[in-house]
């Protein structure tokens, strides 16, 4: 299996780079790599929570490293992920608000994709908590969309995974999906703002697949995103951190 991989990202307009709270994995994957199995993930740290980008990063790296792929396997490592999060935070001389916020913990979405090619059987498997999305494209056709189906499904309160609460019914939060792929298929992973844009334009027949296809490097990505989220009466793209992974599978 040969994988072509690109990652693009930009923080919310008005925020500094350090305030970007999405995460993605892998950070890079070379030009085109041969591999029997490929895993990638995006996560959207909730800006209302604390140390959320740290939590988002732990989650995407754990998924990419194959530490979990469904509710059961996540359940078995959740407390150790939560301990890792806590350990990585310097708690010396915390102010009253930082300490109190730490008790509530961090929250993030997580969406992961695994591609495998084993004995000629090409399978993709997806995992999602929350509203970051995967779009499976063949040519100029949208074959699959997961987990959100339409632009109006997005809300202010998606499912989120907590960094401090271990007593959570993961089977209620986690969604999984799988299917087959053929050589030349493309997969996009993106966090919620761009996902909602994609589905809205798809529903309006404005060819988001074509538009994303025009993005070949980070500069072009920045230009298109800035244009789509320009303040106007009804901007196409909400002002939020934007993360896009493109995977070409052969």
């Amino acid at each position, binding site marked *: 299996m040969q994988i072509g991989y690109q990652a693009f990202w930009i923080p*919310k*307009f*008005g*925020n500094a780079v350090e*305030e970007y709270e999405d995460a993605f994995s892998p950070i890079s994957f070379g030009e085109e790599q041969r591999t029997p199995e490929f895993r990638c993930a995006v996560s959207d740290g*909730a*800006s*209302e*929570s*604390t*140390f*959320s980008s740290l939590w988002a990063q732990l989650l995407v790296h754990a998924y990419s490293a194959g530490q979990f792929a469904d509710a059961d396997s996540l359940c078995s490592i959740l407390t150790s992920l939560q301990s890792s999060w806590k350990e990585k935070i310097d708690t010396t001389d*915390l*102010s*009253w*608000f*930082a*300490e*109190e*916020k730490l*008790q509530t913990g961090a929250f993030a979405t997580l969406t992961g994709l695994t591609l495998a090619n084993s004995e000629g059987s090409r399978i993709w498997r997806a995992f999602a908590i929350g509203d970051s999305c995967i779009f499976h494209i063949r040519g100029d056709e949208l074959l699959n969309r997961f987990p959100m189906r339409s632009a109006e499904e997005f809300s*202010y309160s998606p499912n989120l995974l907590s960094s401090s*609460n*271990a*007593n959570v019914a993961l089977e209620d939060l986690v969604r999984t999906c799988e299917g087959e792929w053929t050589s030349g298929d493309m997969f996009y992973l993106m966090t919620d703002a761009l996902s909602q844009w994609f589905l809205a334009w798809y529903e309006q027949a404005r060819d988001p697949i074509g538009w994303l296809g025009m993005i070949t490097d980070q500069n072009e990505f920045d230009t298109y995103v800035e244009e789509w989220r320009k303040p106007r*009466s009804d901007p196409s793209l909400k*002002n*939020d951190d934007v993360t896009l992974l493109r995977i070409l599978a052969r």
Partner: protein
Amino acid sequence: MPYTAQISRANPTCFLFLIDQSGSMDDPFSGTSRKKSEFLADTVNRSLKELTLQCASGRDIRDYYHVGVVGYGGKGVASAFTGQLFGRDLVPLSEIATKPLRVDERPQKVEDGTGGFIETKVKLPVWFDAVADGGTPMIGALSKAQSIITNWLSTHADCYPPIVINLTDGEQTDGEQPDVVSAADSLKRLSSNDGNVLLFNAHISSSSANPIEFPDKQDYLADEFARMLFEISSVLPEQQMRYAKERGLPVNDRSRAFVFNANMYAVNQFLEVGTKVATKLLR
């Protein structure tokens, strides 16, 4: 559409509390020994704490909000901040958070996840202590609010419209009702590019009568003072109206940002609707 501006560090908005510090605030709520002035100080402290926590991330506070608190009572109309923030009108939240008068600690029981409880301590920062003395110069307070907000808008033309929250237990003593209406109208005529300044009014009561929350008409308001406060209160913007609905309040698109005869619970609920909803625009 108005009241949809995205709030960010680059485009913050402001909350301005106007708090009644007149002598009658020394009276307790009906059926309790809790003085209105002490409850009000506690409530404003808690609101500042909540706003701080909304904006806290890691070790930082993101200045999505600047906040002011103006007291009006026997000493006239002035910023109610004391200590390091003495005399300040609107202060960035990061500065408020690091300059409380003191941080009290209170024990609190939290669930330990296995059906039991553990005792922890909750930190309660205090910026205001109770003050209750003299008359009720509400017209003066509304005029001061107008000048503070005018100043703010001159450098924040695109902000989510400022929210002014007036908490009082009774009628003004510095003029007649038409003067109150006129001062409130001048305040609400101010606007950013995203809409007009919002004026919320909470009437805090010693009476045992039931609170009237977010009414959409004056019909149930028996007395003239209540009707005036209704008249000067803004209509709830859609976000706040939807949030109030989620909390089970019977509101609609004509509901006013107003509560009359509020007891402690009603005041808290009122302030949550007024201050928490804006955070949904942060995401």
